[in-house]
């Protein structure tokens, strides 16, 4: 799995979204694991440091902050960083389009919809749709079903 997990938390470290694509990293101490990631990322200098940081022997983190929210991907060490940064950006763009000027509250109150967006974009740790138009159209169909 190239993407091992996708995580979203705010500046205070409150988790807003988490999806594991590998079993071994979502073991018993899930919360401690997330807290560790939060500490690592929030301690970094976002103006001058890169958006990549090695996390463990097998995982590196690729993250980006949008307003008060961090979007983090845990990615296989062997993969290349920039493409996943684009994934994150695309994800946020799609969310923005879907909710219309998305903010943290949208994500909090509609967390199940965010998961829906996530599942349309990423499956099994792979990106499965890169066209924003296709995604947004599909999502609106799915959304109407509710």
């Amino acid at each position: 799995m190239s993407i091992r997990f996708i995580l979203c938390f705010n500046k205070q470290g409150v988790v807003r979204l988490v999806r594991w694509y590998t079993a071994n990293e979502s073991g018993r101490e899930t919360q401690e694991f997330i807290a560790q990631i939060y500490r690592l990322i929030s301690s970094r200098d976002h103006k001058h440091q890169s958006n990549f940081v090695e996390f463990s022997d097998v995982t590196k983190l690729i993250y980006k902050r949008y307003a008060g929210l961090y979007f983090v991907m845990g990615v296989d060490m062997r993969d290349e960083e920039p493409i996943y940064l684009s994934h994150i950006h695309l994800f946020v763009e799609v969310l923005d389009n879907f909710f219309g000027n998305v903010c943290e509250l949208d994500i909090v109150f509609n967390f199940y919809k965010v998961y829906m967006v996530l599942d349309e974009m990423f499956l099994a740790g792979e990106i499965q749709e890169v066209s924003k138009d296709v995604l947004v159209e599909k999502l609106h169909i799915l959304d109407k079903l509710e």
Partner: protein
Amino acid sequence: MSISNSNNLPTAEAVRQRLRPFGIFFEKSLKDLIKGIRSHNETPESLHEFLTKELAQCRKEANSPDINLKTNAVLKLSYLEMYGFDMSWCNFHILEVMSSETLQNKRVGYLAASQSFHRDPDILVLMTNLLKKDLKYTNKDDMVKVGIALNAISTITITQSLARDIVDDLFSMLNSSHAYIRKKTVTALFKVFLQYPEALRDNFDKFTMKLQDDDISVLSATVSVICELSKQNPWPFVALSPLLYDLLLTIDNNWIIIRLLKLFTNLSQVEPKLKYKLLPKIIELMDSTMATSVLYEAVNCIVKGSMLLDDDYETATKCLECLDKFCQSQDPNLRFISCNLFYKIGIINSQFVADYDDLILKLISDVDISIRSEALELLKGIVNDDNLKLVVSTLLRQFVNEEVVVLNNNNNRRNNSKREIPILIPNSYKIKMVKTVIELCSIDNYNNISDFEWFNALLVDLSLVSQDLLEARDLLGDLIGEQLKSIMIKVPDVRNLTMMSIIKILSMDAVELRLPTVLKECIWSLGEYSSLIENGDIMIKLLIEKSTKFNIETKIILITAILKLLSTWCNGDNAQVDAVEEIINIIIEFIETLTYNSSFEIQERAIEANEFLKLIKESLDEPADNGENNNFGGLPMLLTDILPSFYNGYELRPIAQGTQTQLQQNLAQEYLETPFLNDEDWNNIMKQYNIDQDAVSDTSIDESDIDETYRDKSFHDDISSSSSDENELGSDYDVFDKDKKERKQEQLSNPFYLTDNTVKHNNEERDVFSNADGNEHVNEQMNMVKVKNSISPEIPTVEMFSHDAAATKDKKKKMHKHKTKAKKVKVLTDEVFVQPGLSEFRQNVRKSSNPSSIKVKGGNAIHLQTKSKLGNFDFSKDEINDQKAIHDDELELDKIRQKFQAQTLNQPQISSDNNGNDDNDEEVVIIKKKRKKGKGKHKKKKHSKKEDTEFLEPQHE
């Protein structure tokens, strides 16, 4: 499901039903829960209380027969799961919700399943039929349903048996008329293959056919999946290369191109032939593309796909030019990854990056510390004797200078105007820096160092800065000590300089506490090269004074070092009998304190030394009446002859690692059966001994192997270049010192610092360093056998301490340095005894220390999931006995059914018992325990239930 689609007008109930899970709801809805959490956020206690209440409520709702209530509870629980509340206790309820007929309920169920089922693979057995049902596409509305089911398969960690059960359904769906379903099926199959690789083996063509799918999303998904699979095992996919190559030529979607490049990286690692066809195309791509990401991936593919040969300068230049541009970019991300690739190219052939020293020097001063950290590793590729000093001084400056970044219009220029942000340099980076500096300097047996005076000063400075790096100072102390010892042995021409550095380090404030590990090697060197010290008596006193806080290893060395110092000093020309007697008394007094030391080694050495010193003392006390010792100022033979003979037998020479082991092996083989000395041997040994006395060369060592390398530098060049460097460095050091001083001052005023009362700085010592040139002091040759001096007879001894004791107390040491007469700096190389076994050994050592050589096993075996049980899956293996497997499955299914029945029977009771019980988490743990016990043990089931209720009872009290 939307209203316009239905033929009949919906009833009010239907509308309410439809809106229930996410919208209007009579029960406490998700929104209330979220708002509740936000409003109870003031203290952790109130939040905890609120959540406990909510969880109890959810538990009640989950047990309700009303499917909508249940759904709502499951939705809320999936939300709480993000906060770390385990919801695997309600897996069975989730399953119920998943099997609901209404789509929105089903969706909530599947969402919860992907969040929760990874904790309990057993539940998947019960999910199989449901999945099979949901994967069936019968009418138009089923698209969403099928999609949801496929999502779940892709997200949940599926088991092998589940994979086996659904694989046929999935393959039939690959031919669906909907691209949406085909796309998701491809990804779902990926998960199946990981657990059940047989499926890929048997349907390889059917699956890879999707590379020719008309729909771009399906194609993209297939490329992604194959890329991932090839990461685990590239071999089966090499055959697809022509097809993939055509894709690369025709496709214009950058996302897919990037994925293809990554795929080719994996394939090319195991199939070098691919390179010939791919490389020209990739270079063409680099020329035509506008996208930075594609450009980067192309370079990455060339480098990581082993397409760059170590003599392919053309390609290397092409890649490096591209990376160079990236490294100059304002985007730290681009700089970071490019720097990384730069390094990888440097490893292939360090000549490639040799021209980019300017860039690398720039990168080690980058604003982003992690880029600096990467660049540090690049330095190995670019240092040479010209730029070493510059590199090192750039690094050292980072230790002391407060760096700031100035923000102004995205322009990261230093200094002046606008907003300044200090760059914080973490200790981990500083540690890496010290290590790198030491490594750089010692490359190729100090090949890059022309000026050992500078290197000595550097080591002293490093030992200063290392004292502040608490977490690694032991390691760094070791490293610095090693270096000091190493140049002491290997560079005879600067031994006196090195000795001064060692004494400088020894006299640092509280060095025994702040950098204890450096002392061991320093004190060893003091002893071994004690002939360089004029007044050993003062040195001995000083060492004894300091020794109380030495660690065990240092004390072990100290005992011998003191004896060596004593031996050398007594036989020098300054020692008077009464002074000797005094110093021996001091030593005995000191050593006696060690004879009861808890360390066995110290104790043993101390006792040995003690006994010997007592003998000396006795013989000193005897009246000198036998006339033997006239020549030696009345000193007894024990001191003049016997003691030195302990230590002065041979000149130490550096020997390659592993030599001793090798020699010992040979000893065992060759000498065990031969008799001890015959006459001839004896004569040989005597002859050899005499030659050793002359100490020109050692006949026991093959002549060709002891060739010491003399690096003939044209010394004049050196002087001119180094003097200018020195000036530059000198100013650096001044800054450095000043800063250091300020820092110490700061530390003093800071109550959190452990105080060292006297803020002393080594400014004076540095002054000594620069003033030292004027005075010359040539010590007379020792009249005892001095093998050392015969190797480098021009070496003068240095008068280290002034005879004035008060001055010593002030730690103001007056040093007289002899101007080095030598015109070249000679560095001894490690001596190697060429023997077949040994060279192999050395090669092995090298091999094992080279991490970049990753061997990929060939063969056709598909092992995709290295972590799973299928890691060693063999292509040729016989079919698994399916009948038996199915039978086993049924048994398993029965067991789990029973288990869940028991659980659901238990559930209401537990939840009602636990209303208002604070500790829900505890309870979950208990339920889990029960499950494990229940697994496969029907007889024990009732018993374990009892245990559980017993377990629960104390909670109510």
